[in-house]
């Protein structure tokens, strides 16, 4: 099967209703989505449109009220908690708005973290850390603690952490929101390059116009529904 034909993320009738002081607040109202391997997708929408909830449910961090999610063909609701943890560890890379590196771990240790959970051999871990640090242009920073890095540098390390375990997909929530536009653009170029060269699948939740401009596929979510789904050539 062609890589492009591989259905990495599929959702069917995703509904999520939150309870707030007895009032039911619908966040998602029946979302059907199909994201294939190698896509560079931006899920766009105003605040409160449901895009973060959508990513939470896709990644198995949250459960839908109704509907189903398949990740690489596996039904998420059929997985146990431990299986879900392992699936995220092995197949999903996360990039967060606030970088969220572990502050007591050095750069190289943060990047190694997931590989340690995966029990990757020490030699291979070190080789992969060196390689990814080169790719994100952070050589020479491996022994620094996150507190001694700028926001852009921390986000580069976060990207390296997300990619080093060679996941099937990377889910990024507002990855450029805390960065200045120059740093944001540089990082976006880097992610685009990784997407093109490695065929890695990226799914962004964003309202950053820069990401929207660089994305090949744009899914606009409004009031918990897919408003439009456009793929650019």
């Amino acid at each position: 099967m062609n890589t492009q034909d591989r259905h990495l993320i599929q959702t069917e009738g995703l509904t999520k209703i939150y309870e707030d002081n007895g009032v039911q607040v619908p966040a998602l109202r029946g979302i059907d989505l199909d994201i294939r391997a190698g896509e560079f997708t931006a899920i766009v929408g105003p605040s409160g449109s449901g895009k973060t909830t959508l990513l939470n449910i896709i990644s198995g961090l949250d459960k839908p009220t109704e509907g189903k999610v398949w990740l690489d063909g596996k039904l998420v609701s059929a997985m146990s908690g431990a299986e879900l943890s392992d699936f995220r560890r092995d197949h999903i890379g996360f990039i967060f708005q606030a970088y969220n590196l572990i502050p007591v771990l050095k750069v190289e240790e943060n990047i190694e973290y997931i590989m340690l959970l995966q029990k990757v051999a020490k030699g291979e871990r070190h080789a992969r850390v060196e390689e990814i640090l080169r790719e994100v242009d952070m050589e020479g920073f491996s022994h620094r603690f996150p507190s001694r890095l700028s926001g852009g540098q921390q986000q580069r390390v976060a990207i390296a952490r997300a990619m080093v375990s060679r996941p099937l997909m990377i889910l990024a929530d507002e990855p450029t929101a805390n960065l200045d536009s120059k740093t944001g653009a540089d990082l976006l170029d880097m992610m685009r390059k990784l997407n093109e060269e490695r065929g890695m699948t990226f799914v962004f939740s964003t309202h950053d116009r820069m990401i929207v401009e660089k994305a090949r596929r744009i899914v606009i979510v409004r009031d918990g529904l897919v408003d439009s789904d456009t793929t650019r050539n």
Partner: protein
Amino acid sequence: MSLYTKLAWRNIFRNKRRTYITGTAIAIGLAALIFLDALYIGMANNMIASATASFTGEGQIHGRGFLQTQDANKTVADLDGVAAGLKAEPLIKDFTVRTLSQGMVTSTANVNPVLLVGIEPETEKNLSQVDDVLVQGSYFAGDDPQNIVIGSRLAELLEVGLGDRVVLTVSQAGSGSLSQDLFRVSGIYHFNIQDLDGGLAFVRLKKAQAMLGLGNRVNEIALSFKDPRISRDENNPFWAKSSTGDNEAQGWTKLFPALKSIYDLTQVGTLIVGIILFAVVALGIINTLFMSIYERMFEFGVMRAVGTRPWGVRKLVVLEAGALALLSIVLGVGLGLAVTALVSRTGINYKGVEFAGVTIRSLIYPVLQVRQFILYPACVLLFTLLVGLYPAAYAARMSVTGAMKRTL
């Protein structure tokens, strides 16, 4: 160092002030426990020594039923055989024989009931401290059979002094006939124990046996052990071996049940204080760990999101509790050792205080034991790990999205 151990060790130093405050609280609790245990051992030893070394001895052998009836006619059976057995017994340090009889002592001024004790002065010196606490006169110097040694309180009651004459009246064993004799006060002692200073009168054994019509028989053998711990071991075969025939042998735990209760109470006391201290410490640990968890909710959320299993989070928090315990143990053991070692040199002065019928007659010296530095630190470590399970379970159970609000 494993990933979680490294994380735990570094995490406890993220808020150094909080870690040091909690660690110091745990350390003080541990040090207090070590000191208290050492003090209780010292106090128990002191009280036991006060009770047994003054007069009673660590153990006694009587004719069966004597202790219940105080009947002078109930004497130690087969005295020669028992004495020979005690001489050959490797556990025994010293022993002495006594007659014991209720009687009246009369002076020109007053009359008072006493327990007349017939002793062999030379062997008695090894068992009791009458000779050590003499404040006037001498302890059976010469061989005058009419010498009597009495306590300071009795001398006061009888209004007699050294060289004064007193009359002793006892009823003879078996016949019950009264027997009287005139004695001269040759020594006055002062134990600072009311019962001993006011209620005993010592005369030579032969004289007492003659007055009581006992022949060569005695009512009591008092003994001490080379290892004092044997005296409180009620299951030691010595007691059964020496309780054959018409005799019964008992240690101080049976002779002074109140003292035994106090001794047992000191053990329970350490346990109760330990439980209270640990409960206080537990709240401190739980508070510290929860504060730390709440500050790092986001981080735990990220860890869980990137694939850390709940078990990993639980392990991390428990290891943080363990790391905190280790720090505290190092500090607590040092503090406990320093304070206890210092006080075990200087002693604590409770002289003259009467407790459970025993007057403390010397300084109390806390006793350091290796056990205190193994058992209690191990308890602190185990307890801290156990207490850590609660916040650990909380951290592991929390919802990932809840922990990471406003992100993924």
